[in-house]
């Protein structure tokens, strides 16, 4: 008998092909042209608009929405890409409810913001579907810049540098570009291989060479790069994960949420991907929510997300929490893991109730589990890096590290939230600063 949602253990093919397709379709269907016009019409074209300030890349939102409203979505897309070359991905993955749409005056007025994210997707899809690249490179500068990491930060930096006339070599340890866009973002946010298509489209600018399978620290050192290139940008994200540090955490069935998600993102056939019947996710951020939701969508019967502090302290936005709840994920708060039970294979996880200061109460609860994902934070990996601060590379407002000629941005660097859009902003700004410092005075 084939597996279904009731089959115990970690099993593939719990659902029908139609269910997989439906579960992993676009979270928000794209707006059709009429919906886009209606949505665009709601924008007030605010003066010095608060939504712009709330966007880490400071896209001129009222301008691009007006360009949609007047029937020129291609011009709107250009306004977006001027500030944010990954505007297509950001339109899909930005937690707009805590960024631009939270700041929208119509959110204040009636609790219904202008659909900025969906309008951004509408405009960028139209231009990208035409397979034209809207930018050209400036006259070549003869400078050569190394970028470590082909994630959002590295790609944004590379694109801007190429546009300004510099040649860029990007090295990435993995086989594909895109960083977490390719390996981390929830599948229903980036459908139809969008991450890879976006990278191809971005590279049309020219002047960017990507070397895959090249690991910084293993295949090349910072000193090598400093020697060989005119400037270095570090955008390697957070490659390591925090461990649970629990007894029994090595039992089979225990894994890291980011690995589970990466496998899911790379799976060509979702039905081949096994998932537990009783899944427990430990953590309270976006990664925890994504792992929990996708486990549920893969056909797990019970998915419980357990966070050690209260709901208000969760890093996942209220919107994300609600999304999880709507997909059937149970959220338990104020419970810290204390032990993993089972004979070689996990059977139960034991939690102790804790308050927001993590004071133990001595009272525990056990949850049945045949699969457990830890999502309790990622860490920076690597040696001989510029000076760190709180576990990340310390940078100035424009991304300059403690080392001359070395910039950094994205998740690996201090400053800003760990979001795609923040990584893009930091990559772009570092590129502008690199350009200014290389061409300085000229």
């Amino acid at each position, binding site marked *: 008998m084939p597996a279904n949602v009731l089959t115990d253990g970690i099993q593939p093919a719990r659902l029908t092909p139609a269910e997989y397709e439906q579960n992993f379709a676009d979270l928000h269907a794209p707006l059709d042209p009429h919906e886009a*016009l209606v949505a665009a019409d709601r924008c*007030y074209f605010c003066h010095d608009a608060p939504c712009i300030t709330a966007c880490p890349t400071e896209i001129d939102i009222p301008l691009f929405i007006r360009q949609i409203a007047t029937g020129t979505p291609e011009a709107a897309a250009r306004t977006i890409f001027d500030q944010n070359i990954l505007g297509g991905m950001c339109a899909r993955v930005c937690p707009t409810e805590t960024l631009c749409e939270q700041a929208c*005056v119509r959110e204040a007025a009636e609790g219904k913001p202008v659909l900025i994210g969906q309008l951004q997707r509408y405009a960028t899809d139209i231009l990208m579907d035409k397979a034209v690249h809207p930018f050209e490179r400036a006259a070549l500068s003869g400078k050569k810049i190394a970028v470590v990491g082909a994630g959002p930060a590295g790609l944004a930096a590379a694109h801007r540098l190429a546009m300004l006339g510099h040649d860029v070599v990007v090295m990435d340890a993995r086989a594909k570009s895109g960083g977490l866009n390719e390996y981390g973002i929830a599948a229903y946010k980036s459908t139809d291989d969008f991450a890879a298509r976006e990278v191809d489209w971005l590279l049309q600018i020219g002047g960017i060479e990507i070397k895959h399978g090249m690991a910084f620290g293993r295949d090349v050192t910072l000193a090598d790069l400093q020697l060989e290139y005119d400037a270095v940008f570090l955008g390697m994200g957070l490659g390591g994960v925090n461990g649970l540090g629990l007894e029994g955490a090595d039992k089979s069935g225990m894994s890291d949420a980011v690995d589970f998600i990466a496998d899911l993102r790379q799976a060509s056939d979702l039905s081949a991907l096994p998932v537990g019947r009783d899944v427990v996710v430990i953590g309270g951020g976006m990664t925890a929510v994504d792992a929990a939701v996708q486990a549920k969508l893969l056909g797990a019967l019970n998915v419980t997300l357990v966070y050690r502090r209260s709901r208000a302290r969760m890093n996942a936005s209220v919107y994300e929490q609600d999304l999880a709840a709507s997909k059937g994920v149970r959220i338990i708060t104020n419970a810290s893991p204390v032990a993993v039970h089972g004979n070689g294979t996990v059977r139960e996880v034991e939690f102790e109730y804790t308050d927001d200061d993590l004071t133990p109460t001595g009272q525990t609860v056990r949850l049945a589990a045949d699969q457990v994902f830890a999502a309790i934070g990622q860490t920076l990996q690597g040696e001989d890096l510029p000076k760190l601060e709180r576990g990340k590379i310390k940078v100035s407002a424009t991304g300059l590290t403690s080392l001359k000629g070395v910039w950094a941005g994205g998740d690996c660097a201090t400053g800003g939230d760990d979001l795609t859009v923040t990584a893009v902003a930091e990559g772009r700004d570092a590129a502008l600063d690199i350009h200014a410092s290389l061409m300085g005075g000229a």
Partner: protein
Amino acid sequence: MADLTTDFIGIKSPNPFWLASAPPTDKEYNVRRAFEAGWGGVVWKTLGSEGPPVVNVNGPRYGAIYGADRRLLGLNNIELITDRDLFTNLEEIKRVKADYPDRAIIVSLMVPCEEEAWKAILPLVEDTGADGIELNFGCPHGMSERGMGAAVGQVPEYIEMVTRWCKQYYSKPVIVKLTPNITDVRKPAAAAHRGGADAVSLINTINSITSVNLDTMSPEPSIDGKGTHGGYCGPAVKPIAMSMVSEIARAEATAGMPISGIGGITTWRDAAEFMALGCGNVQVCTAAMTYGFKIVREMISGLSQWMDEKGYTDTSQFVGMAVPNTTDWQYLNLNYIAKAVIDQDLCISCGRCFAACEDTSHQAIAMSEDRTFTVIDEECVACNLCVNVCPVENCITMEEMATGAIDPRTGRVVEAEYANWTTHPNNPAATAAE
């Protein structure tokens, strides 16, 4: 519930809402259904002389202007008068009138500007038992090229002459429908009055090109690559129509002449506004063409609710009530001083008032670091632009300054007395006030 029965120039109808002469009234089938839906009367689609009827284009005859969510704001048409046989129309009119004696049926007419033509058609119309006729001196396209419609309506002498023939050869009320495609609408209205018309109706449609196709470079609607101007109607024309109505209501030569108001009437409120400006009833075309006959139910319920709230028991009680308050600019009280006031609880900090006032007006709105917007009384001239651009209703209001207070903009005391431009010291033609 207020009684909406209306007596307009002796023609009774159960409510003041008539369908204007246009496609909704082009045939028996439509008119019966309109009456069933509740319309008080119809002006039948304009009839022409006996003989082969006019032909319409066989491509698109409408163009449109849209607001948000494709709300139709303005419609443009290049349709001509009825393209159905005269006698078919007359028979239908007779049948419908016999079946609906309590509803008003007016027959719209447009025949060449010759006495014989009118003499020929009027007895035929008389025979239908319809309640009156409306002379279509307004159609601005097609017919006007043949010396009819607006071509007559633009020459007061012709209006007077034709009206006189009609009063001579027809026994029931004659309404003259005016074109807005003219510099001073009081002139044709006065001519109709001199000719003996019982009433005027206005407006017919306004010359218009609604859009140009930027690929084919043809105006729309495009017939085989070419377009022509059409007649504009719908919500967009209401302000123009109301101004013209008010001019006729106020003019000495036509004061008190009954008016049937037309142009953009879409809701009970639009109708009430036209009536307040002096219209004894109203006619509707585009709203019915956009939403169907059923809208009259909202018009009826809305008007009677408002009349109940105001204590009016008969429509005649508020007809013309706004006319005495419609005046020339020179008689507006220059001692009335107001200031814009922003309600900070309602304000959503969009900054539109700031952009408008700062960029295009009087730099009278201050914006703070935390996006608080406040009016600078020293600069505010009370122009109302901020009120008009603010997306939040009642967020900015115009507050009158109390007598005796000092206007911080001018440093002058607010006077109690009314004083207008005719006596203002800056007016070289002022008649000495002191």
